[in-house]
């Protein structure tokens, strides 16, 4: 799998009077693993959702390998794409939710193969073979026919990761993938993400797990108040933060 180049430029997003993002600039290079950290309410989830165009931005843009997400550019205007086109471009971006959001009425395998077949039009047999391979990769080969609610939280999140990967995305976004899990289940999910980090897919992970950020992420991005305060190699940001706000945050969480 080859990773995509993710570029975020001047992204603004308001909810009513509240400015959740106030001009975010961020570049994630192909194959890079970026961990986004920051206090609650700093706009991390909103940023991830904007990357995926689940949230429309007010100003600025997000592009993946030079292709705008959700818009087409004509000179100096951005025109929103048709829903069909947005959906097509979304298949290049995997999204893993904090609460898994698996489809409870479908089996594990059905969850995984739904999008390859119906969003990308791949043949069912091929999608199923690949789906089983992915399930094996996240350690759930034997649970293909179970339904999500019959699995533990950690298993559900691993299925959700397999489901995101089934689209062969250029970038995978994780929104606090382990914060809904019991502590003893966190490790198995982080293990899967770590393995994924070695495959060359671009990963953007919002996380509160500082040890994980240090070990797996290439860069750490610190956000506060709807802007990126600081971005750099993980060891630099975590050990020698340049901004006093980063420092104050790290002192609280470490």
């Amino acid at each position, binding site marked *: 799998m080859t990773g995509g180049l993710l570029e975020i430029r001047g992204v603004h997003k308001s909810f009513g009077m509240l400015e959740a993002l106030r001009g975010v600039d961020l570049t994630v290079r192909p194959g890079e693993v970026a961990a986004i950290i920051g206090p609650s309410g700093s706009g991390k989830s909103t940023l991830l959702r904007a990357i995926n165009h689940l949230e429309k931005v007010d100003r600025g843009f997000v592009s993946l390998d030079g292709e705008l997400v959700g818009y087409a550019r004509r000179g100096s205007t951005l025109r929103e794409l048709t829903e069909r086109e947005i959906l*097509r471009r979304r298949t290049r971006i995997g999204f893993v939710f904090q609460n898994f959001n698996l489809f409870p009425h479908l089996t594990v395998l059905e969850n995984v193969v739904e999008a390859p077949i119906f969003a990308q039009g791949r043949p069912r047999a091929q999608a199923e073979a690949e789906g089983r391979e992915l399930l094996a990769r996240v350690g759930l080969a034997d649970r293909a026919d179970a339904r999500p609610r019959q699995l533990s939280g950690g298993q559900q999140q691993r299925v959700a990761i397999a489901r995101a990967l089934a689209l062969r995305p250029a970038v995978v976004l994780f929104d606090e993938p382990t914060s809904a899990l019991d502590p003893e289940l966190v490790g198995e999910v982080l293990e899967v993400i770590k393995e994924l980090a070695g495959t060359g897919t671009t990963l953007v992970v919002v996380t509160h797990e500082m040890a994980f950020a240090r070990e797996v992420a290439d860069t750490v991005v610190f956000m506060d108040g709807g802007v990126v305060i600081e971005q750099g190699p993980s060891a630099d940001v975590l050990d020698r933060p340049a901004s006093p706000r980063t420092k104050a945050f790290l002192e609280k969480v470490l």
Partner: protein
Amino acid sequence: MSADLAEGESRLLYPPPGMPPGGGSAASAGPADEDLRVVAARHPGRWLATAVVAVLLAMVVSSLVTNDRWEWDVVARYLTWPSILEGAWATIRLTVTASVVGFALGTVLALMRLSRSPLLQAVSWAYTWVFRSVPLLLQLLLWYNLAYLYPVLSLGIPFGPELLFFDTLDLIDKFWAAILGLGLSQAAYSAEIVRAGILGVDQGQHEAAASLGLPRHRQVRRIILPQAMRSIVPTAVNEVIGLLKGTSIVYVLAYGELFYIVSVIYGRNGRVVPLLIVAAIWYLALTTLITVVQYYVERHYAKGALRTLPPTPLQRVRWELQVGRSRLTGAPVPDGVPPAFAARVRVGRRVAPRGGAA
């Protein structure tokens, strides 16, 4: 890894063999665990209530049997009378067709109401407003008189040439007037039921479906509606039962459904009460049928929402019989009976000799 975990959990839940459930040491002084006797709690109040209800029931049954004005022989004769059967069949056809029309259109209206287009939203809202406000009886008569407003119906290009012509009277006979009346007003109610069901599906499901890039119709049909069905079905069945009984209103069009036929017969022979009973029995039977179907439809949509489905009444009866046979004959419980049921064989034997240990 996961399997180990599940086992570990169950080990915690069930005490290991030989350990009394309470965990106390007192029990170890008494009889062996195997011989512990199960005595059900006593409920004198429940006994009293049961006795009262039993007496009341006996009174009802006795009056049904002894009062010969019920004319049960007439009821029995007419219950399967050919024209009554035809009427019942017409009622079934009306119910099924109106339900299908009602829920198909209702689903479309619900999706319109939830769409982002203000016009579609407004049209859907206005539809519900009109069809919920005008009495059904009035709607039926209006549809039946459509030919007065539009003697000829045509298919063609809007505001352009017309290609096909139909005589309204030919097209909308009594049956279709009834379907229009029942179905279109049903759609107004169904729309709200479907909309509530869709709104009840977790927002995360919509987002997950969208984030996977699934086409819109697939998101709705495969992801959202099946989950909405869980809350839609019970209310929808209520509506279908209401519709089944509501078809009797179609007698104003002199359409030969069950109630109209019954009224025609008692108008001729004067046996009013027995014939009303005949109709009541048929409505009861059809409602029962719908309820049974409901059970299995609900079960179907419960897949995945529950970790394990409870057994159906049929499974339950079969297992009870198998367990009962094993208790009588001492034969081993057949495979396929779940442990929770099979365990009763043992419990039953312990209870049998009363006043054992104490």
